[in-house]
């Protein structure tokens, strides 16, 4: 016998529990159900996830839910048709759950969790500055959020004819270039596009070489404040000898690389101290011999796990073109035993060439 009773009232905490397990696309739609759902869903935050990119696809990995033998990953469908360009697509920024992706037709802002996206073909001519292979070979990018104007900004740094760096700052809201700056000559080599600017606390950071006086060149960090649109330079810790990189780990800007003893060491920049060079604190150093097999392999920290352990991956020095090579291994560093525990399970046919950390949000690129 079919019952035709009225549904009982479902308690809020159960509704929230149900919503929590829905995919992003459904949640983006259900924001329109009523005001209380809208406010709950807009504030919903998840643990950070890691996106692995190959030149033709993306996978999102939940390392927290993974065990040592099974890495849990899902394929992310890129929303746009990608043509036959040599480079496929490259992520050149990650901020508030949105990725800035460059592909052969131009730029797109993509929320990989909800699938929301916005092509930015009108922002600047994608063909300008492409090299013979269809890549933005020489440009550096940054993608960040400006709280003061509730706007996303794209920073593009390119080399001008007189060998200085030209910077253009684009606003997503006004869809135009807001400012052009030429960086002073002291700012030398800025790393290439596979390492986009790191966004944290309203500013973007790139690793650079900085000329102190006329004789010595120092490792440094270029900082761009998105609200006042000013650049400044922060000198790096002196310890690094090679393979230095920047990353955002545990909510702080970190610099990591190898020192004279061949240990991978990691320093964090202290909050709100932006001048001079006393603002770095050493977080850890991994006293391990260089990785075996191929000489060029080295460790790259990815993120801190909820329990405080460090997740690392490996890079390999390939040709002169890119610093980071194919990444296929993931390790958890056991600080007590000073050993690396390998995590297995990523599809072996999936050649990872880049890892990006992001947080799942329901931010819609179409709002800007």
């Amino acid at each position, binding site marked *: 016998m079919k019952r035709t009773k009225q549904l009982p009232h479902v308690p809020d905490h*159960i509704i929230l529990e*149900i919503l929590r397990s829905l995919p992003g*696309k*459904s949640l*983006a739609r259900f924001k*329109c*159900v009523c005001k209380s759902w809208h406010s709950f869903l807009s504030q919903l935050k998840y643990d950070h996830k890691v996106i692995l990119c190959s030149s033709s696809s993306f996978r999102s990995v939940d390392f927290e839910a993974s065990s040592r033998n099974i890495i849990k990953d899902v394929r992310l469908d890129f929303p746009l048709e990608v043509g036959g360009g040599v480079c496929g697509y490259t992520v050149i920024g990650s901020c508030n759950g949105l990725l800035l992706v460059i592909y052969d037709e131009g730029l797109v802002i993509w929320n990989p969790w*909800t699938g*929301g996206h916005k092509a930015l073909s009108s922002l600047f001519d994608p063909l300008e500055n492409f090299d013979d292979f269809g890549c933005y070979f020489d440009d550096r990018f940054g993608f960040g959020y400006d709280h003061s104007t509730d706007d996303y900004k794209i920073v593009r740094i390119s080399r001008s004819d007189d060998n200085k760096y030209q910077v253009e700052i684009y606003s997503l809201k006004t869809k135009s270039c807001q400012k052009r700056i030429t960086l002073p000559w002291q700012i030398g080599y800025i790393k290439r596009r596979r390492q986009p600017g790191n966004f944290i606390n309203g500013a973007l950071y790139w690793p650079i070489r900085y000329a102190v006086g006329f004789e010595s060149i120092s490792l440094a960090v270029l900082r761009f404040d998105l609200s006042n649109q000013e650049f400044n330079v922060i000198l790096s810790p002196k310890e690094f000898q090679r393979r230095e990189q920047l990353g955002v780990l545990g909510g702080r800007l970190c610099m990591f690389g190898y020192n004279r003893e061949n240990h991978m060491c990691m320093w964090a920049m202290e909050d709100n101290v932006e001048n001079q060079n006393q603002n770095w604190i050493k977080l850890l150093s991994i006293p391990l011999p260089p990785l075996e097999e191929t000489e060029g392999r080295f460790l790259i920290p990815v993120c801190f796990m909820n329990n405080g352990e460090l997740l690392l991956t490996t890079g390999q020095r390939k040709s002169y073109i890119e610093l980071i090579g194919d990444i296929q291994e993931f390790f958890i560093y056991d600080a007590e035993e000073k050993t690396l525990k390998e995590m297995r399970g990523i599809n072996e046919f999936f050649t990872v060439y880049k890892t990006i950390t992001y947080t799942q949000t329901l931010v819609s690129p179409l709002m800007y």
Partner: protein
Amino acid sequence: MSTAATADASSSGDTTEGSVRLLTLQSEDGEVFEVKETIATQSVTIKGMVDDDCATSTIPVCNVTGRTLAMVIEWWNKHEIGAVSNEKELKEWESQFDTIDDKSDRDDVYDLLMAANYLNIPTLLDCCTSAVAEAIKGKSTDEMREFFDIKSDFDEKEEDALRKENQWAFEN
């Protein structure tokens, strides 16, 4: 030990389950169930009563019908440690909750959800919430309002703006 030999002759009487205590549960509509304590304590609520020594007489399970309580007990039996030999079998059995095809299915899952909430049975609650999530993930906003009996408090303009912002989520 010689307990087995002495027990043999005299004790064929009241507790067939050996030393396992039986609890008596009574549903909202008066149906009475006898359940092993070890099984019923999968409910955090009942476990609390047992721990506090409040489970000596019939336990009234208000808000839960006999029909639903029988389903809950079936769940408990399947999830008792050692009752199902392997994880795969359990997953297969659980998968019957994964699809909510018609209205009576929906009512069942709804009833189970409320019972799992009232009796505080975390595993059952998880299973039901993901079954509901699976059933609603493709629904439109209007269908969601109907499903959860929610009235929209957006005015037309607000809703239009929101839809525009999340436009891709409404496609196909």
